[in-house]
């Protein structure tokens, strides 16, 4: 697996099949929120379990022992179990659209997950995750100490996006050949046009005057027609 950091901060992994996959590392802000959600979930579930246990075990001491056992398992085990069995996502990470993956983009296993979560204790030092935060801010991929040691990283989970159909306009062939990048830009514009304000669309269409030979509304219509021609139907 080759890896390099692109200019936009996305992490490109080259698969054995020769295609490059892009992962977007998640920063401290979102991860902090995810942590806070997990913390609330933990506190709430621990107090619910505590109530249930006090009904099941009327004996104060028996209750205390079982409760501390539950506390231990949930405190150290919850993130690890979530990450291993729920494809790298605790409840907080799920809510924030994040997931933990290995450096090569594959799902984490027991060793990686346990290591990174044990080292939360190191990231916490000297107070309130200061070491982890400093480490994240210094690292190009926002990894905390535990991530670096375990060889993991937290990335955005790729969302399957609804593909919008390009508006039907009478297709027009291109006046001259465009490079693939230019074609992509044109198609991207045509796909995003319905979500952009009209004035912004016209402003952008004006910039494309060398291609369309027109200005304003006419240029915009021509751009859409060219995009339709690129897509097919000609």
């Amino acid at each position, binding site marked *: 697996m080759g890896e390099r950091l692109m200019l936009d901060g996305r992490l490109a992994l080259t*698969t054995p*099949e*020769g*295609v490059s*996959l*892009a992962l977007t590392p998640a920063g401290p802000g979102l991860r902090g929120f995810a942590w806070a959600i997990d913390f609330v979930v933990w506190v709430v579930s621990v107090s619910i379990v505590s109530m249930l246990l006090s009904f099941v075990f009327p*004996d104060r*001491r*028996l209750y*205390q*022992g*079982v*409760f*501390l*056992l539950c*506390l*231990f398992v949930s*405190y*150290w085990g919850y993130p690890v179990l979530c990450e291993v069995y729920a494809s790298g996502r605790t409840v907080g990470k799920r809510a924030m659209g994040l997931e933990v993956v290995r450096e090569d*983009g*594959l*799902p984490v*296993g027991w*060793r990686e997950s*346990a*290591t990174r979560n*044990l*080292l*939360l*204790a*190191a990231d916490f*030092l000297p107070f309130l995750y200061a070491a982890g935060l400093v480490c994240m801010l210094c690292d190009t991929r926002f990894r905390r*100490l535990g991530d*670096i*040691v*375990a*060889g993991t990283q937290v990335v955005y989970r*790729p*969302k*399957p*996006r609804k*593909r*919008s159909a*390009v508006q039907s306009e009478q297709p027009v062939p291109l006046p001259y050949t*465009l*490079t*693939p*990048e*230019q*074609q*992509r830009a044109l*198609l*991207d514009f*045509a*796909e995003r046009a319905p979500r952009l304000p009209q004035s912004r669309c016209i402003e952008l269409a004006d910039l494309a005057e060398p291609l369309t030979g027109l200005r304003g509304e006419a240029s915009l219509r021509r751009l859409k027609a060219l995009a339709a021609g*690129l*897509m*097919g*139907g*000609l």
Partner: protein
Amino acid sequence: MKQQQFEQQYKDNWTEVAELCDGRGDGTRLPLVYRALCQSLALARQRGYSPSLTEHLHTLVLRAHRSIYGTVPERPLALRDMVVRTFPQRVREEWRLFLVAFIAFWGVAGVVGYLAWYDPNWAYSFASPDDLDEFTRMYQPDAARIGRGGSAGDVAMFGFYIWNNVSICFRTFAGGLFGGIPAIFSVVFNGVHGGVVAGWLTRNPATSITFWSFVVTHSSFEITGLLLSATAGMRLGLALIRPGRLSRRHSLLQASRRAFPIVVGAALLTVIAAFFEAFWSATPSLPPQVKFTVGAICWACVLGYFLFAGRRRAA
């Protein structure tokens, strides 16, 4: 080729990949259709098709890539193998670091314990008078069990030992990352504490037997567990300080692989210790001779395990 033609031509392949990733259909076809999908993505990128199409394909490739390469071989005996072989082997590999932790604990505990035993004034330098009184009270021959409240109390103590001691074990390991200093500090701190308690209670003939018969069994597992988690932590710290010819990141990664079985083993030992400490050590009905014998057997087992387990080659 126009984008729409392209989509028409390969649509079936893409839907098949999506279905296979969801676990429907014949899974053995996944590698085949995945390769075709990779080709589609490369073509779509090269030909400048719309970003929404390339992104859609990219997401699909990512999913299929994970389900193909992310499949872990099932290793039902992994934990057993770790306990029987890997753990003692790794511990023997790290004997130098273990020696450091060993001296940090037993050396400090021995010196502090001797001082507290030799001259009780020393004990007050390491612990407050209230604490010392409390220890004396706790280990009065008749108080050991009464303070706990029967078998329910044993469960309460078991929960407490697990929550407290295993967490300390984990924190000691994690702290080791900072150059090993916090791990050593944790070991020395526990050494001082253990030493002063032992020295103080040994001085007093009323508490001496109660104390030693209480700690002799579970300490074999508990102290070894603590020392091993410190060893694993120091391994990480050393990887950071002295990465050798590797980059610091690679050195840490490698050290974490080596340290992991030790941490797991140390946690298991501490759990065993908690079990003994809660359900065995405080039993008042057993004569001290029995406890000392069992304690000696446990120490011999721990020693024998780390010296001999996993020596034979894997069958």
